C-alpha cells in the first residue's frame, strides 16, 4: 500500500513563535534521521524484527504534516483585522468629537497702535516689523562704521536722526547717524 507523501509546503509562511518550536523539533528529528542513515542505521525498530508495514516511519511524517498544516493556517487567524464595517454614524462620532476639531482662539485682540489683529501675550506683527526694519538699518550703519568683523567698541551707542545734536548725556557715546527724520514711534 503506497502512502503518497504530500509535501506541498513550498509556499513561504510566517514563522510565529508557537509555529517555530515544532519546526525546530521537526528539523532536529530530520537531522537525526539523516545522521542515522549515513551511519547505515536505516530503521529505528529492533534489527531482528520483521519489517512491518511501511506505515511506521511514514506515520511520523504524516503526523508532522497534520501538525504543520493547521499551525500554518492558524497563524493567519492570529492577526488583527476589523470584524465589522464601521458605520457612518460611528465614523462621524469619531471624526467630529471636540478633541479632533480645531480649537477656537479667544485671545485675539486689536493692536491699539495700528489696528491690526494680534494675540494677547504677543507683540503686534506689524509694529514689530517696523521696529525690526529700523533696527536693521541702524545695524547696517554700525557695520559701516566698524569696518570689519569683531570690532565692537567698549562704549555705549546712541542713534541720532537728521537735525539732531548730541545732548549732555551723549558725550562719551558712539553716535550712529541715520539719514532720515526721527520716526514718531521712537522717542528716546
Amino acid at each position, binding site marked *: 500500500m503506497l502512502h503518497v507523501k504530500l509535501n506541498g509546503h513550498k509556499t513561504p509562511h510566517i514563522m510565529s513563535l508557537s509555529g517555530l518550536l515544532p519546526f525546530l523539533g521537526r528539523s532536529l528529528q530530520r537531522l537525526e534521521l539523516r545522521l542515522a542513515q549515513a551511519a547505515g542505521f536505516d530503521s529505528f525498530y529492533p534489527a531482528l524484527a520483521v519489517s512491518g508495514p511501511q506505515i511506521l516511519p511514514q506515520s511520523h511524517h504524516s503526523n508532522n504534516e497534520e501538525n504543520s498544516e493547521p499551525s500554518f493556517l492558524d497563524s493567519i487567524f492570529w492577526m488583527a483585522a476589523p470584524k465589522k464595517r464601521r458605520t457612518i454614524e460611528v465614523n462621524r462620532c469619531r471624526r467630529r468629537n471636540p478633541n479632533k476639531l480645531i480649537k477656537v482662539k479667544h485671545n485675539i485682540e486689536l493692536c491699539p497702535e495700528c489696528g491690526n489683529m494680534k494675540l494677547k501675550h504677543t507683540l503686534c506683527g506689524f509694529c*514689530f516689523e517696523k*521696529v525690526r526694519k529700523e533696527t536693521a538699518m541702524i545695524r547696517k550703519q554700525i557695520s559701516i562704521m566698524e569696518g570689519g568683523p569683531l570690532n565692537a567698541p567698549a562704549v555705549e551707542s546712541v542713534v541720532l536722526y537728521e537735525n539732531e545734536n548730541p545732548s549732555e548725556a551723549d558725550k562719551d557715546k558712539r553716535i550712529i547717524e541715520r539719514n532720515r527724520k526721527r520716526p514718531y*514711534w521712537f522717542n528716546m
Partner: protein
Amino acid sequence: MRLTLRALISHGRVARRIGLGPESRINILRNILTGLVRHERIETTRARADEVRFYAEKLIDYAKKGDTNEKSMKMADFWLTEKDLIPKLFKVLAVRFENQRDGCTRMARIPNRENLDRASMAVLEYKGNPFPPLFPMKRVSELNLLNQLLKAYREEKAQMNVKLHRF
C-alpha cells in the same frame, strides 16, 4: 511625589532639553549669548530665549564684580566666543546695570516664524539698548470720544457739587 518609575515618566521635570545633549545645549546657548552681547537684541525660539535669559543675567552679575576678578574673567572668557566683546561686557554692560539688582533683560513674544515649522519665537534684549523700543509708549489722547465724554461728565459733576454747596 515619587509615585511612578523614575526613568520613564517625566512628571514635574523642569529642565529643558535643547540640541543633541547637555554639552550641545551649552554650546548653543553660548552662541546665542555671544550674539546677544554683540547685538543687544536678538530673535530666537521661545525656549532658547527663556534659557539664555538666566545665563545672560548671571553673566552680568559676574561682570559687575569687576574684570580684575579671576572667576569673572574666566566666565566671560568661556561664555563669549568672540573675544572683542569681553571689554564691552565689563565696560559697557556692567556699568549700565550698576545700580540695578536684577531685571537686565527683557523678553517679548513675537508671532510665529514664517517657515514651514511655524516655530514660536521671542525677542530678547538687554535693557537700555540704543534701538527703538519694542513696546510703544502709551499715549493718552484727550481728543478721543470717550475721553471727551468723561471730561464733560466730570465738569458737570463739579458744577452740581458747587450748586449743592451753595445751599
